[in-house]
């Protein structure tokens, strides 16, 4: 039974990454990303750079392209969370190589996010998942952890100047705190500079609207998708 699967997967084939032409190498990276092969993604990223690819092109065509496929199959129930995290880990391996080059060249990163579980709440598995998936999609993620107060959020926003603020809550008693944070953003006059995304088991679309968020995200995959859309829209408008 397991053997059948292996046969389908063609486990025996040997591939020399450096010998593949660009288009095949990118396709191979999609597969390697899918399979969560961090080392191979790192190697392929270096090969593309050596061949003269711009870092932004490697990021967008190879890495983000690969994670997009992962995102689609996660949404469709084909990939499981542990598999997606493994893919995200492979993505990170590529990002680690690209990030210094990207910042050197002043290229715009995919996006930066400050994320935290709101004050009074210490349930963070969903928030962690969003953080990992966002990193996997190429975002830079600053995780403030749990029980985050308005002041802590404000300080982090000032320091990191993110595109996105993400907040999570699991308790119905703590979720209203999101509105407290959004109101503080308005008061400080920085609400419009930020994309505010909220999530957590008891939340829904309506709650997201009521607290003044730009998006409610029901799961980590949705969060990544919405984040990419909203950042793209914002940049297009700018």
């Amino acid at each position, binding site marked *: 039974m397991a053997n059948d*699967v292996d046969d389908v*997967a*063609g486990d025996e*084939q*040997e591939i020399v990454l450096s010998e593949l032409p660009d288009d095949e190498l990118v396709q191979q990276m*999609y*597969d390697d990303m*899918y*399979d969560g092969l961090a080392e191979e993604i790192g190697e392929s990223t270096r090969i593309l750079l050596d061949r003269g690819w711009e870092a932004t092109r490697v990021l967008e065509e190879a890495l983000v392209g690969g994670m997009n496929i992962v995102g689609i199959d996660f949404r469709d129930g084909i990939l499981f969370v542990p598999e997606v995290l493994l893919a995200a880990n492979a993505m990170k391996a590529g990002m680690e190589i690209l990030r210094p080059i990207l910042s050197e060249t002043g290229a715009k990163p995919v996006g930066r996010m400050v994320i935290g579980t709101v004050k009074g709440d210490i349930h963070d598995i969903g928030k962690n998942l969003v953080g990992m998936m966002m990193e996997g999609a190429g975002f830079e993620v600053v995780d403030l952890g749990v029980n985050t107060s308005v002041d802590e959020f404000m300080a982090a926003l000032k320091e990191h100047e993110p595109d996105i603020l993400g907040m999570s809550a699991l308790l119905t008693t703590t979720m209203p705190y999101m509105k407290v944070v959004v109101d503080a953003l308005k008061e400080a006059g920085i609400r419009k500079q930020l994309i505010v995304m909220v999530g957590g088991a008891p939340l829904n679309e309506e709650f997201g609207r009521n607290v003044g968020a730009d998006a409610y995200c029901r799961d980590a995959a949705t969060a990544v998708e919405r984040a990419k859309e909203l950042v793209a829209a914002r940049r297009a408008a700018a």
Partner: protein
Amino acid sequence: MEERPAPQRRRSARKSGGRAGRHAARAAGAAGMAVHPGMSGGAYKPLGDRDIERIHDAALHVLETIGIGEPIPEILDAALPKGCTLGDDGRLRFPRALVEDMIAISAKEYVLHAPDPALDHELKDQRVIMATSGESVQILEYATQRYRPTKLVDLYDAARLADRMEHIHSYGQPFIAAEWSHDVYTHDMNIGYAALAGTRKSFALGIAVADHIDPLIQMFDLYAGREGAFLERPFCTFGGCPIVSPLRFGKENAEVLVKVAKLGLTGDVAVAAQAGATAPATLAGALVQTFAETLACLVVMNLIRPGSAMNFGMWPFISDLRTGSFSGGSGEEALVISAMTQLANHYGLITSAPSGMTDAKTMDAQAGYEKAITTLSAALAGANMVCAYPGIVGSLIAQSFEGMVIDNDMMGAVLRVLRGIEVTDETLAVPVIEKAVFGEGHFLNQPQTLEVMQTEYLYPEVADRSSPGDWHESGSPTIYDLAHQKVQQILSSHYPEYIEPAADAAIRDQFPIQLARADMRAGNGRWDPTPHTSEQE
């Protein structure tokens, strides 16, 4: 800058193949990863050892003193020389020692062959497989919520659907082809053909005319490509209920039992006395009587052919004494089927047990709990063949295709319970706990999680685990609606060609096959999506 690693020959050890490989693996299903047919039951034992002895003694006393009425001549020919006696009252009485001898010599295991040998199952010990069963007469239609008479083409569809259900390991004819009930020969040949055409799993047919077995075997030989092939690997069992309770032989089915024994095939009986109506109202009394009745069948088979195998289908049913009508789903039913399984297992017999026979008229919450408690009980008791009646509703009256899909999930969950918990150094996971606690604080990206996500957990096909928000957004479908989508998806596309064209031509040439070829191809209109169903996405 550190030296880059030289281009390496890479070969993924764990998994490779990317998206295409994973899609193929997922499409192949989780078969055999978390659960598989043949896992052992036997943990649930409602009877004490002394209870078993007393039921045994009482049943043998009943056979010796009350006996079984209306024995057919072939049974008399086999039984009387061995010490059975025929009373002036026309009842055949079985000496205690003979019954015990026959229990001792009867086969305690056999291979349940399937048209596809990969789907064969060994029935022995307390290993459990799951099967469909039935012979109901109506279909519950999803769109109208009305019952309508079953047709031959429905039977073909049921076989195709069961073919695709992972936790249905064997296909027992779930209903009759009602439009051919006036012509039993045509009926019987066609139910055999419909099963052959629709599934590669082993199958069972309810046959009440012994003379129809030879032609069916001839058909199966044509299918297998050579005369004699079927008897070498019998992938179909023929059976019914040779006993009319209380304690009488039913002529037609007794003749089938004798015929099957003579051919050396496995007997498939379902002795279904109804406690309170055709058996004592006390559950123990119902066990005594049905044990005696089923033993009589076992004795008959082994008198005719020593060493015969028989699915020991001791199926005590329950009456609702408020109305006198049959009831299939209750705590009492769960108890008696488990008790009878325990009893039969005590002697090492090959057991079949009924379950899932809900009295609910549709696949509602009542159906869910009635089906689950009885199926779980039968499996935990260790019945070799749990005839779980997937899809049956309305006290065995009707079959629901959607129900078969929902019950497939339920049967999977039951099998998962049956498998139990493996406790090893690895599964105790202490180093993993340590790594997570002192690391990222969670287990979602621990290698062990990835490793066991499909072996430790079984994921339901249609049971809804989405969030309330998602559920609401997708139109608040019930499991029944989701199952309907699955039914439509499978039955509009799964048209297997299990019968070779040449064999099909030969079968159609020699038998009055009524299943039109046009109805056995996609696009025939039967399962095209209907506009009123709310499709997701």
